[in-house]
């Protein structure tokens, strides 16, 4: 018997709702909802009882239509939004014994700066657009307690070189970059602390095909070389197929199907997944 591998991240019954809920929608297992929306009080149930595990050096894909709760899930994991209820454990923080969602905001900052990296769909959310690219990467290092300028500058340049930003543009601000370059700076920033877990939210959406291929290549290389676990959110099944090992399918805030990516895409079980897979152009 080989030893069971410990998960990097465990999420149990994560809930996120926008609004207070009312007697009409509360505790009804969602029977009275229109999709994930309560017509009486207007509460939106963005994530409902989401449970998942990510193992080290594994890429987990999250697919689903827009509004299905994919991005909200990632934002809860990165503490951009407070989750309504649920438990999360991350290996590397208190040996995975403390629920990260109930920690103080100071501790959440610590987790964010030391153990997580996030790449947003919109680079404006992840970067300080009018600071230099080197500075943007240094910010993450500063957050992790680094106070050596020369080390941080060298590390930033090394990372920017790794994501193919030319040396002569490294001190420029990302606002002067093209969308693809901004996305690559974001990836470099997210990687700066060697986080064990990287969260990628629709990283290639809106980029043209050749740039998309570049970014995807880069992600694959990073995963192979650095052995980083990742959660990749995308509505593009081709991206999911290329990158991920396992996939979960979300609909109206719920996980409706999960399994190996090949399995889910070749032999979808849930009616919605079937529709999703066969509506490929």
């Amino acid at each position, binding site marked *: 018997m080989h030893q069971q591998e410990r998960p990097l991240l465990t999420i149990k019954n994560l809930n996120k709702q926008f609004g207070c809920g009312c007697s009409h929608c509360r505790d009804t297992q969602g029977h009275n909802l229109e999709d994930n929306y309560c017509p009486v009080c207007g509460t939106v149930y963005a994530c409902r009882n989401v449970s998942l595990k990510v193992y080290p050096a594994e890429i987990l894909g999250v697919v689903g239509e827009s509004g299905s709760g994919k991005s909200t899930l990632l934002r809860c994991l990165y503490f951009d939004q407070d989750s309504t209820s649920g438990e999360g454990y991350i290996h590397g923080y208190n040996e995975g014994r403390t629920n990260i969602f109930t920690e103080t905001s100071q501790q959440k900052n610590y987790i964010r700066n030391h153990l997580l990296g996030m790449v947003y769909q919109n680079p404006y959310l992840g970067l300080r657009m009018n600071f*230099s690219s080197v*500075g943007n990467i240094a*910010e993450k290092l*500063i957050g992790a307690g680094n*106070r*050596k*300028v*020369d*080390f941080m500058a060298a590390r930033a340049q090394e990372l920017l070189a790794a994501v193919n930003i030319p040396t002569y543009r490294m*001190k420029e601000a990302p606002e002067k970059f093209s969308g693809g370059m901004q996305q690559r700076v974001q990836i470099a920033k997210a990687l700066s602390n060697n986080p064990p877990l990287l969260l990628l939210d629709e990283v290639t959406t809106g980029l043209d095909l050749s740039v998309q291929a570049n970014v995807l290549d880069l992600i694959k290389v990073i995963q192979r070389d650095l052995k980083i676990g990742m959660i990749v959110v995308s509505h593009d099944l081709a991206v999911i197929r290329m990158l991920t090992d396992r996939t979960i399918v979300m609909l109206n805030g719920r996980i409706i199907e999960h399994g190996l990516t090949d399995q889910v895409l070749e032999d979808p079980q849930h009616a919605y997944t079937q529709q999703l897979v066969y509506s490929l152009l």
Partner: protein
Amino acid sequence: MMKKYNFAFFDEGSKREIRRATLKAIAIPGYQVPFASREMPIARGWGTGGLQLTLSLIGRDDIIKVIDQGADESVNAVNIKKLIISTTGVQDTEKTAEATLIQSRHRIPEVELREDQIIVLQVPLPEPLRTIEPSEYKTKKLHADQDYNGIWLMLFEQIMKHGRMSTGADHPVQVHGRYIMAPSPIPRFDNQKLNDSKTLTLLGAGREKKIYAVPPYTKVQSLAFADYPFTVEDMSAKVCRLCGTTGVYMDELFDRDTEETYYQCNDVSYCLQRENKEMDDLR
């Protein structure tokens, strides 16, 4: 004389409110305490924060000194001093050692202050994080979380751009290992005087409605990176033309006729006392 004002201009309730904010500020070193900044007979942004602190603290036995960037006789300093004196009738002085209460704009005197003195600094922008975060709601959260990445990043960017930290005045400091504080636009030269100072330092921002403080014997650390240490303006080679002192903060002046650059103590009363041989201790 017809009595038009209460002692020290304010009614007692106002003074008490300001003093209550001041006590809280002293209890939490470096934390900006909001207070009900009052309308003053001078415009906001002209020292009303410092003036309100001074007026709330002053008693009949106090001896007041008012400084404006090192000078006792600039218009701003004189007007503030006149207002204080005409509403309280207290004595004033230009000699730092004689004063019990010192209100200053952008300088800390060269003479070391004592435990029985209080220095009040006027502050235009009390929030050190304002340049990186415009929202007050968010800067309060950043302070609460001790999330000071932004201000470190600002210093990092300066080093990237200029090869050194380029803050001229108002170089951010960390007080008592907790809050990051704007020391008011004093030159970096004066930052070190705040550290472990014998005197109580109060800082008041009238327009921004904030009071904060550095209690006596408190650690005040100027922010700096491990490989780019904090440096002060180098005054070692500069000699005051009037009193011959070196090693104090100097003004650089230029004589157009002789095309000569010369230096003069910025702290005028210090310079005068040196010249009049009233001060024999060589710093």
